[in-house]
Every structure is written in structure tokens, then in C-alpha cells.
């Protein structure tokens, strides 16, 4: 298992580094959301009404930004050969890389989202639901995105193809993520939505490393 954590540690360091995915993702997320009050006007009711949708759409798009580099960088410099021939099964190697991607992008997004939600006048009763929904939803973004990143490995316009492949698969996450927040804001229970997000995550967790590993193997031929 030490190989697994070595991969997580190293990828996390790359993600958090100067050219890493974390900074771009978080900056995009914050900037995109801050533009909405300027664009649609500062009325609290209007902002509160759209806040859940804005935050989730921004999170979905921000997560796409770094996905095309997820395996591409390692493919270009030959590291992927090394990873594929290591004693650790490729599925676990991919899982480690996806975990590092989430720790560097999805987790910080989820943690700063409540602050941005306050800026958008979101009902404070909905904030815990927002945080929980993002904590359950963002790992799915990395996992499903990983399949897209692996499939487009070696394609020249990977950056365009990845969102095209993954965004349709992520629509359930968007719907239930927004649903959880709106239910909490109107005083209903958010748990049905959160449970569905959890179910989606469980499915993605089981399937996506296998699918991505198969796609990476094809790319290495």
C-alpha cells in the first residue's frame, strides 16, 4: 500500500504546486461566482433564488478545467509507463491519482463554497446542506471526469473533448446537488437528495477506476 500513498502524495504536491490544478480551479470557481452579483444585480431575493444553481454549475465547470491534464502530463513524460508496469494494479494507481485530484480540487471547492453562498445571500439554514452535498458530489466529478480524461488520452483536443464526454454523465449530480440545497432552504429535509448523491458516488467509486484503467491501457498500446 505504500505505493498507493506515494502516488497520492506526489500527485497532491504537483496539484498544489505553482503549475498545479488546485490554484486554477479555485480561482475560476471564486471568480465565476463573484461575477453573478455584478451581472444579474444585487437584489438579495434574486441572488438567494439562483445561488444554489450558480455554485453547482461553477463547481461542475471548475472541475473540468484540470481534468485534461490528469493523465496527459504523465503520458507525455513517460511516467504513465512506469505506473502501468509497477507491481500495484493499475486500477489502484488510477484510484490514487483520482483521490489526489479530488483532494487538490474538489475538497477546497466544497470548503470555500459556504463563504461564497453567504455572498450570494443564501439562506443560512441551507449552508450545511450545501457543504454536505458538495462533499458528496465533488468526488463524483473527479471520478467520472477521470474516465473522460483517460478516454481522451492522446487526443489532440482533449481539453474540449473531456467536458463533452463527462458533463452529460454528471447531470444527476447537478440536479440532486441543487435539490439538496433548495430543499433545505425551503425547510424540507435534504437527506433524500444527499442519499442519492451518495449512491451516485458509491457507483462511481466502484466503476470509474476500472473504466479509466482500461482506457489508459488502450492509450499505452
Amino acid at each position: 500500500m505504500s505505493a498507493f500513498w506515494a502516488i497520492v502524495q506526489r500527485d497532491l504536491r504537483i496539484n498544489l504546486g505553482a503549475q498545479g490544478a488546485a490554484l486554477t480551479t479555485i480561482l475560476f470557481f471564486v471568480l465565476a461566482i463573484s461575477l453573478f452579483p455584478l451581472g444579474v444585480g444585487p437584489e438579495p431575493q434574486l441572488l438567494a433564488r439562483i445561488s444554489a444553481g450558480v455554485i453547482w454549475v461553477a463547481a461542475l465547470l471548475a472541475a473540468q478545467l484540470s481534468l485534461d491534464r490528469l493523465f496527459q502530463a504523465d503520458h507525455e513524460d513517460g511516467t504513465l509507463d512506469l505506473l502501468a508496469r509497477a507491481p500495484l494494479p493499475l486500477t489502484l494507481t488510477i484510484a490514487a491519482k483520482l483521490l489526489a485530484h479530488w483532494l487538490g480540487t474538489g475538497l477546497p471547492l466544497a470548503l470555500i463554497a459556504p463563504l461564497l453562498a453567504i455572498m450570494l445571500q443564501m439562506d443560512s439554514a441551507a449552508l450545511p446542506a450545501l457543504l454536505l452535498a458538495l462533499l458528496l458530489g465533488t468526488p463524483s466529478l473527479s471520478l467520472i471526469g477521470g474516465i473522460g480524461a483517460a478516454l481522451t488520452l492522446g487526443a489532440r483536443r482533449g481539453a474540449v473533448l473531456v467536458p463533452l464526454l463527462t458533463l452529460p454523465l454528471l447531470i444527476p449530480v447537478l440536479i440532486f446537488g441543487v435539490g439538496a440545497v433548495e430543499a433545505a432552504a425551503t425547510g424540507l429535509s435534504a437527506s433524500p437528495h444527499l442519499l442519492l448523491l451518495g449512491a451516485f458516488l458509491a457507483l462511481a467509486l466502484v466503476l470509474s477506476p476500472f473504466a479509466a484503467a482500461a482506457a489508459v491501457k488502450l492509450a499505452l498500446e
Partner: protein
Amino acid sequence: MALSVEGLAVIRGERRLFKDLSFSLAAGEAMLLRGPNGSGKSSLLRLLAGFLAPAAGTIAWQGRPLAEAEDFRAAALYLGHQDAVKPQFTTEQNLAYAGCLLGLDNATAEIRAGEVLDAAGLGRQRRLPARYLSAGQKRRLALCRLLLMPAKLWLLDEPTNALDSAAIDWLGRALADHRAQGGAVLLASHVPVPLPDAQALLLPEGKLAKDEPAGDELT
């Protein structure tokens, strides 16, 4: 025989690179792959490394077909064209990471990386971010990965790329040590490599020959 190959054929894209390739390699033996660009030297090495599937033929490792030889993945080390060096990490971190991937724990990998770097003449660059290394130093760092752990088979694709003569001597010693410990080598190169008593396999014909003494090929 450590490695035996029977009737191997490879198709890349629409093109058949070679067919009916048969050879065997015993422990301590070395084989040089020779042939013009595009004759399938790299493809043969990638095939043996498990990245490609053969179109026909069988590969056996210590008497068992490759698919059943679970120990083969760990027993064979592959070095491709690319150095797989991350520029933002130090020389030592790059090598220690490779050690961790091979299953060493963090502390052991670091100690082993330090020893190997000293032997390879990269001791002074140990704490230097790899982006400051020259092309030859990066290649040396990539070769260092082979020395982290003993292996039974090395699959090397143009290992001498960008190496200076001192580094080629060092590679020659490393190859000799590896073979003295019973390791086999399969090496593709179109420049002379210090590998005495090696057989040569000419691609794409698949003919076996005695390798010419190093130096004659350049003339």
C-alpha cells in the same frame, strides 16, 4: 531459458512490423536489437513489457506463457524513450518515487536512491530540482531506476541517448554487473553499446547474428 519467443508477429496500425520472430534468452545473456528506424525494435520491447498484444506467436517466461507468469511484471524492468522525470522534484525525489512504486517503503527508497545516485555520478545533483539537469543527466537518472532493485530482465530502449562517454562506461559496468548476477538484457540501440558477447537480432527479418565488436558499426 529465461525468456523464449516463438513465431512472434506484430501489427501496428495497418502495417505488419515483423513476423515469425523466434529467439530465446538465458539468464546472464544479452541481446541487441538492430534494425533501421521503424523496424519494430521499440514495439518488440513494449510488447515484452506488456503494453502491446502480439498478433501471433507466444512468449514464455521461465517455461510458462506470459499470461500465467505472475512474477514477470516484477521481474522485468522496462526503460522507454522517455525519461519520466518530473522537473519540479529533486533528483533524489524522482528516484525515490520510482522506488516507492516498486514497493519499497519511503525510508528505504530514499536511502537506496541516495546510494544509486552516488554510484551514477549524480551525487552532487541530489537536491537539485530535475529541471536544471541536462538531457544526459536526466537519462542517467532514468537509468538509475534499473539499479534500485535487482531484476531478472532489463528491457532497454535506446539507453545511451544523450549520454557522454563517461556515462556510457558507467552503463557498461552496470550492464556487466547485472549480467554477472544472472540478469538478462534485451537492448535496442543503433549506436555501439558496451555489451560484450551479445547476440544481435536483426529486425525486421528476425535473423540472429553475432554482434559486431563495438566501433565497427560506425564506419
